[in-house]
């Protein structure tokens, strides 16, 4: 057996109740109980070592790179908490069995409870501070699930979220703090951190780290000003309140203070913050506890108050204070868990927790009342119960401290006030419920609960008495070791019920008397407090979240208008902002290359190009005119290519122009002929500025690049096209050989585009105009005779040209791409001239398959080289003597180009024919062809 078991058992054990969901409830409870009991057995195995002063450890490597390891330790402090968690856990599970109603999902409850138990055990046993943080957050999650257990109630949901948000925020602060500490210490193992305590305390980031860690502790332990979440966590089932929100989880913050006391404690800052916060919390909590009418509300605030007390003791930080703090942790766990369970019993049996309705239950529930009185007396600090002793120690510390110089005398007075309030609300708990007149009608007629439901309360009550009477036998051993792990020095604790007549005793006496007086005057307090009604933290929380969310939505609505123009503007402005600095740094835009003289042809071409581009932009509202202008731009670009000796590009550009203009005119059929004026003058102005900048940037770059001398890989292509690629047309050899992989990619893009456009079209149902823009109906002759005849003539000629261009491509301008486009445009002409029906009747090719096969041919050509153990697309060529034609080259690149050719035809036709079909009764089908 090893330490890991203590955590892993409940962690994986959490699945058990879920697995046994179908079994009777008693079985589920017993199985769940078996988990902590087995942990206790293992713990007993280790406890002697801890008592002997050793620290049993366990180390499992998890993430060395992060410094996060599964390292566990069981020092005195851990042992104290582990015992509390397991011991009270057992009692709570037993109690919950009777508490939950038949409709409640017991499996889910126990699963979450065990999960919580595992995470809590993890916090207190972690020997690695990051691991501790992981478990810390897990308690927040499991607490969230448990508070929200009855999620159909809005209180539960909101309470759960508020608790998670508060403790979660604190947890994140804690994480930052721990990371800082680890960074300073150079390790996240606790021993290393402890060893680096002095370095940490003198480090520049000490104050930051301390504040962050304290934020974690204070949120978790509901210290002022974070006390607000705890009362709302009471929406949880009572066993959860008893376990998490009084006995264990809220003590995690206290545990953290104790754990880090040797590392961070003892400085002026620690003393001031922790003590003051603790003191304020104690008073605020006690005051509100008195005012609550809800039993669980009272207990919740009293928990806040007692946690404040412990916190204050840890702030003072002397050996005596620490012993007092640890002692009070035990005592508080005992009496508060018992009180919560009592409140649960009263609620369960009577149907209400409202003290204004409850009264006189003494006669009906004598056993419950007796037990309640014992534990309440302990809470109030009445001898001979355990609560008395730790309170005496606390008052003693309050008297002894000298933290605030001349104002130190304030502390014992305020401590006495706190004690008095504690007495007052303890009396209220007992007197209002069990006495205060005769029993009144309640939702249910209460009686004592089943014996087994009272048993956990009884056990805790007995503990309260036993510790009170025999503190040395009961707790001194564990306090010794626990205190020595907090003070980092061996400690021997001396406890006794009777300290003789001294100042603390007097303060206690004053507190009891004052408490009775305050209780007697409670009505005045209630009246006074009524002025502050209507302040509900839960609603505030919800309101704040709602408001932030609304603000965020407003901000986004303003920023993200859903306007494409705006998005484009953002992109272009980003380009301008990011590029201007480096362009400004450019010393000159003309590089060393001599510039060519400007000839007339180029001049005229450039002027036409600029004018056409300008016209396209200014005339864009008349769509047809704009298309014409655009085609002029395209034509000029093609001519420019031709003029600057790039015939391949010129040819490609020319055919692409034809095909795309046809496509756009088809699209125009479905669209209004004119674009409405959409932009305001301001926006046009803005857009002109953006566009000018972008144009200027691109022009600058272009000019600078073209005029700067540079060596490039293109020399290699020119040198190797013939000898390596077997072709004299360098452009084509680049396309089908040197960079054939790019071409394969691009024809794939073409095929995808065709498939995508088909996908879009067969879902669209556009409006089909029956007349032109001026209201004239379409001409009755759809297929003019002249066009039909010409088209029929052109087709075979175009096909021949296409084949010719294709074949010569490797050596002269041409190639598969251009040839494919030529063939496709001739076929489109058929569609235009003769209509879909006519073409379908004569030429029924599945274009989709054609393009797929085209790409496949290209890809398979590439694959062929694998047979010769060469990489994909390795080419091969030879010269063969053919009959009739003579010597002719055969290259695998030609096969590749054939694939390109077929793909281009297939894809172009698939796009255009489907678009064309939109205008006819042949709607594009789902499958496509």
């Amino acid at each position: 057996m090893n330490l890991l078991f203590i955590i892993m058992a409940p962690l994986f054990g959490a699945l058990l109740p879920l697995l046994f969901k179908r079994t009777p409830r008693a079985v589920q409870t017993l199985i769940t109980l078996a988990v902590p009991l087995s942990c206790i057995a293992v713990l007993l195995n280790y406890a002697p070592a801890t008592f002997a002063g050793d620290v049993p450890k366990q180390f499992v490597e998890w993430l060395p790179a992060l410094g996060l390891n599964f390292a566990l330790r069981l020092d005195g402090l851990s042992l104290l908490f582990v015992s509390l968690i397991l011991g009270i856990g057992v009692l709570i599970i037993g109690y919950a069995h009777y508490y939950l109603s038949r409709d409640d999902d017991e499996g889910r409850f126990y699963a979450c409870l065990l999960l919580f138990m595992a995470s809590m055990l993890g916090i207190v046993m972690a020997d690695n501070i990051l691991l501790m943080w992981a478990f810390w957050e897990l308690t927040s999650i499991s607490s969230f699930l448990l508070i929200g257990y009855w999620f159909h109630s809005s209180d539960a949901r909101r309470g759960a979220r508020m608790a998670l948000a508060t403790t979660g925020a604190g947890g994140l602060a804690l994480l930052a703090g721990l990371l800082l500490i680890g960074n300073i210490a150079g390790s996240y193992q606790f021993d290393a951190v402890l060893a680096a305590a002095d370095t940490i305390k003198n480090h520049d980031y000490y104050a930051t780290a301390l504040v962050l860690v304290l934020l974690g502790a204070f949120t978790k332990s509901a210290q002022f000003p974070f006390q607000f979440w705890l009362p709302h966590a009471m929406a949880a089932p009572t066993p959860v309140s008893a376990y998490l929100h009084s006995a264990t989880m809220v003590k995690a913050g206290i545990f953290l203070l104790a754990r880090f006391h040797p590392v961070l404690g003892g400085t002026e800052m620690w003393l001031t913050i922790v003590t003051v916060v603790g003191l304020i919390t104690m008073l605020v909590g006690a005051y509100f506890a008195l005012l609550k009418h809800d039993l669980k509300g009272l207990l919740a605030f009293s928990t806040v108050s007692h946690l404040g007390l412990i916190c204050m003791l840890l702030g003072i930080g002397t050996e005596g204070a620490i012993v007092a703090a640890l002692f009070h942790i035990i005592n508080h766990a005992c009496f508060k868990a018992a009180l919560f369970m009592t409140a649960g019993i009263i609620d369960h049996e009577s149907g209400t927790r409202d003290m204004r309705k409850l009264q006189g239950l003494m006669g009906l529930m004598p056993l419950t009342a007796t037990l309640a009185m014992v534990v309440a007396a302990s809470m109030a600090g009445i001898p001979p119960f355990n609560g008395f002793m730790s309170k005496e120690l606390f008052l003693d510390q309050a008297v002894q401290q000298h933290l605030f110089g001349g104002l130190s005398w304030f502390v014992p007075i305020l401590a006495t006030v706190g004690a008095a309030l504690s007495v007052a609300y303890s009396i209220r708990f007992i007197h209002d419920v069990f006495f205060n007149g005769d029993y009144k009608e309640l939702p249910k007629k209460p009686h004592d609960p089943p014996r087994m439901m009272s048993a956990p309360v009884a056990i805790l009550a007995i503990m309260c008495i036993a510790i009170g009477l025999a503190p040395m036998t009961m707790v001194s051993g564990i306090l010794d070791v626990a205190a020595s792990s907090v003070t980092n020095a061996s400690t021997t604790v001396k406890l006794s019920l009777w300290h003789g007549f001294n100042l603390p005793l007097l303060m206690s006496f004053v507190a009891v008397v004052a408490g009775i007086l305050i209780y007697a005057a409670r009505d005045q307090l209630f009246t006074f407090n009524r002025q502050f009604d209507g302040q509900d933290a839960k609603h505030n929380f919800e309101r704040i979240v709602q408001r932030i969310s609304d603000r965020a939505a407003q901000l986004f609505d303003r920023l993200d208008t859903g306007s494409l123009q705006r998005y484009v503007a953002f992109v272009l402005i980003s380009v301008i902002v990011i590029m201007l600095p480096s362009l400004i740094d450019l010393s000159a835009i003309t590089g060393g290359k001599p510039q060519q003289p400007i000839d007339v042809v180029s001049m005229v071409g450039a002027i036409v190009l600029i004018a056409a581009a300008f016209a396209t932009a200014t005339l864009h509202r008349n769509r047809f005119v704009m298309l014409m202008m655009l085609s002029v731009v395209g034509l000029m670009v093609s001519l420019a290519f031709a003029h600057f000796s790039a015939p391949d590009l010129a040819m490609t550009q020319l055919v692409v122009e034809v095909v795309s203009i046809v496509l756009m005119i088809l699209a125009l059929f479905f669209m209004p002929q004119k674009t409405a004026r959409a932009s305001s003058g301001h926006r046009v102005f803005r857009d002109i500025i953006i566009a000018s900048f972008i144009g200027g940037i691109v022009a600058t770059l272009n000019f600078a690049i073209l005029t700067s001398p540079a060596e490039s890989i293109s020399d290699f292509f020119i040198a190797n096209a013939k000898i390596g690629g077997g072709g004299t047309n360098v452009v084509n050899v680049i396309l089908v050989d040197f960079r054939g992989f790019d071409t394969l990619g691009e024809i794939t893009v073409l095929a995808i585009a065709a498939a995508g456009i088909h996908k879009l079209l067969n879902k669209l149902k556009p409006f089909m105009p029956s007349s032109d823009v001026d209201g004239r109906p379409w001409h009755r002759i759809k297929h003019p005779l002249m066009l039909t005849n010409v088209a029929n003539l052109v087709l075979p000629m175009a096909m021949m040209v296409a084949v010719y261009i294709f074949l010569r491509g490797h050596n002269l301008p041409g190639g598969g791409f251009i040839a494919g486009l030529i063939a496709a445009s001739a076929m489109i002409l058929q569609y235009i001239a003769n209509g879909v029906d006519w073409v379908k009747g004569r030429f029924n090719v599945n274009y989709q398959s054609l393009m797929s096969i085209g790409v496949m041919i290209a890809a398979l050509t590439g694959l062929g080289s694998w047979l010769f153990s060469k990489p994909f697309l390795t080419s091969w060529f030879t010269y063969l003597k053919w009959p009739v034609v003579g010597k002719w080259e055969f290259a695998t690149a030609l096969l590749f180009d054939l694939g390109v050719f077929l793909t281009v035809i297939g894809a172009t036709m698939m796009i255009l024919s489907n678009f064309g079909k939109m205008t006819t009764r042949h709607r594009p089908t789902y499958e496509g062809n």
Partner: protein
Amino acid sequence: MLQQHLAILPILIPLFAALLQLLPWGNRPQPKRRAIGLLASILTLIAAVALLVEVQQQDMLVYLLGNWDAPFGIVLMVDRLSALMMLITAVLALPVLIYGCYAEDNLGSHFQALYQFQIMGIMGAFATGDIFNLFVFFEVLLISSYALMMHGGGKFRVRATLHYVLLNLLGSALFLISIGVLYGVTGTLNMADMAVKIQSLTGDQAMLAKAGSLMLLIVFGLKAAILPLHFWLPQAYSTTTGVVAALFAIMTKVGVYSIIRVYSLIFGADANELALVAHDWLWIMGLLTLVAGAIGILAARDLRLMVAYLVVISVGTLVAAFSLSSAATTGATLFYLIHSTFITAALFLLADLMAFERGKTASRIVSGKKMANHSTYATFFLIGAIAIIGLPPLSGFVSKLMILESAAANGHNFWLWGAIIGATFVMLVAVTRAGSKMIWHTLSGKASEQSAPLGKRIALASLLSLTLLISIFANPIRQYTDAVADQLTDVDSYPVHVLKRAGGEHE
């Protein structure tokens, strides 16, 4: 034989699968297409695993296409980073495809083929060592994504697609211009070669290259959805079908990958005058993206929109953390990348399933009907929330912790700490609020009768289980990402591998 061509298999397998799927296949083609798609995805996954094993043994695989020497021909350069990204893609693609095979693919034409084309494009972008070829594969993946995004049709979807298409066309134009600039200055397209050439640039030439590299940053930033180029993402991801959104979890990562690739290999610490040109921008824009994403999830009124903003947050985190440019932060960043890809994909699928079973209220964050598989989704949501927020013990916790821990404590890095921790808190509040409304706050009455197919739930569960596995096996994964980071830092090793060919001559 396949061993020798391993580097290109993840590109060719989906290509051939997609081409086959485009063929007619008779009267009931869909089952056959699904079979082809699933088989291809499994094969791609196997190839990706094999690649990852291979690069651990021999640093990087260089594949000379057409057997032309670098820098003249195109090379595939599968280093550890590429292999990792390819494996992430393959692991993501399989469960998402399985999910899609449950009739999601019947909502429009060509889903199966486009899906494979999409994978091919992504794989190619990760594998290539040539910047123009990267552009080509960007086109492949973009054009497939245009078509996939409008899968299922509908006015809003087509509108979002239109925005997406036009913005990306703009991006492609800028990409082409910047490649032109870089080619003009360096005379090469091969990335490793370009890295060598960039090192020796000075004066105006360096300034031109800088201009080109920053324009490239806009292109990749648009793809990755960095502020202020992220506007397309929430709208697009929240209107498209769940299965496509889930696949697109990898798409922003293509942008992030390209940023990592280009700004560590070409414009990395060794680039002399051009060293780390983009890192200041990445730092600031990354942090702002994080903040914008956090505000976004607060504003979101729809679960899918919320997940889309969670994607934005993850991008901001990745970019800001990467800009710290130490080996440790890069290792942590890549770990986070793995985590965030899978978990955001899973959340998109979950939102889709919940929307389906909730019926009229769909994925809006309001209380609605009890779902048919309510407790299953409640569990899924819990797991997903814990993982994405970054709470223990799942992968989000480990990966965020890694980023914070690797960014050493100093004044500069505290901004990152603050942004990440702050965003985590916002996520905590917003995601629990959504869960509370949609899962806990159900209307009384009968549960919904629409029940999603079991197979979809299993596909989602398998994606979700990755978050636990990543956490358990965090150490070996981190060791690998650290090895990736080391390799990225060692810029000089790239030209050595890529520009010296192993042997053999061209015929």
